[in-house]
């Protein structure tokens, strides 16, 4: 299953589907990093609203995506972690330390707009 990556100005938006396999997540990681380079994007929003489960592999992949993109000088925001998914992550002992998160896509975009304004 391909994850669609949408380009909106300086921001790339990747929207996760419910049933992503490990291979899909790895594919997305490669795709996102390549596109950040190609479009000289300043930020990436990963929308996980539809994700039913965030297990150890998915969390690790998200952290890796954020760290790789930071090395490119861009920012990553994870948006839309559902309350029950957040609860399961905490029970499992998973964290997204060092990665920005926001309630939803709208909040994520607002956070980046503010950030860009301060940087320019």
């Amino acid at each position, binding site marked *: 299953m391909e994850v669609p990556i949408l380009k909106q100005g300086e921001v790339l938006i990747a929207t996760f589907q419910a*049933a*992503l*396999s*490990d*291979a899909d997540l790895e594919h997305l990681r490669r795709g996102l990093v390549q596109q950040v380079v190609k479009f000289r994007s300043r930020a990436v929003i990963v929308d996980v609203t539809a994700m*039913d*489960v*965030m*297990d*150890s*592999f998915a*969390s*690790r992949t998200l952290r890796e995506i954020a760290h790789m993109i930071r090395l490119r000088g861009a920012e990553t925001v994870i948006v839309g972690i*559902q*309350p*029950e*998914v957040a*609860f*399961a*992550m905490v*029970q*499992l*002992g*998973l964290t997204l330390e060092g990665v920005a998160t926001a309630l939803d896509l709208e909040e994520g975009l607002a956070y980046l707009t503010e950030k860009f304004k301060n940087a320019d």
Partner: protein
Amino acid sequence: MRAGEIRVAINSDQDIVTARQKGRALAMEAGFSTGDATLIATAISELARNIVSYARKGEITLKIVSASVRQGILIVASDNGPGIPDIRQAMRDGFSTSGSLGLGLPGVRRLMDEFEITSQPGKGTMVAVKKWKL
């Protein structure tokens, strides 16, 4: 196949997704809340991933069980892989031999109500977990 038992063969990362989806569907059918169904699906995902990472292939079985007035879900993950030489070590947070996260087993124990593991080096591993409906 016994009545009411769902078996999912685990051979690849795609099967991890299948197993957790079937587990969630069964949990919802049995009347678990969405929150509990998410905990159950997450536990299944971790158990199935352990099979793929350490044993390459195995099986997950899902079943609704009852004890007196309580109803719950039983998940059994079994494989004929290399087994775990030191279960106590494997149950400690942060322990991993496959370069993954090492949160698997202790994390799964926290997600579920009952946890049982048996493993024989060279023969395989079986993890049985239960979650009771509130």
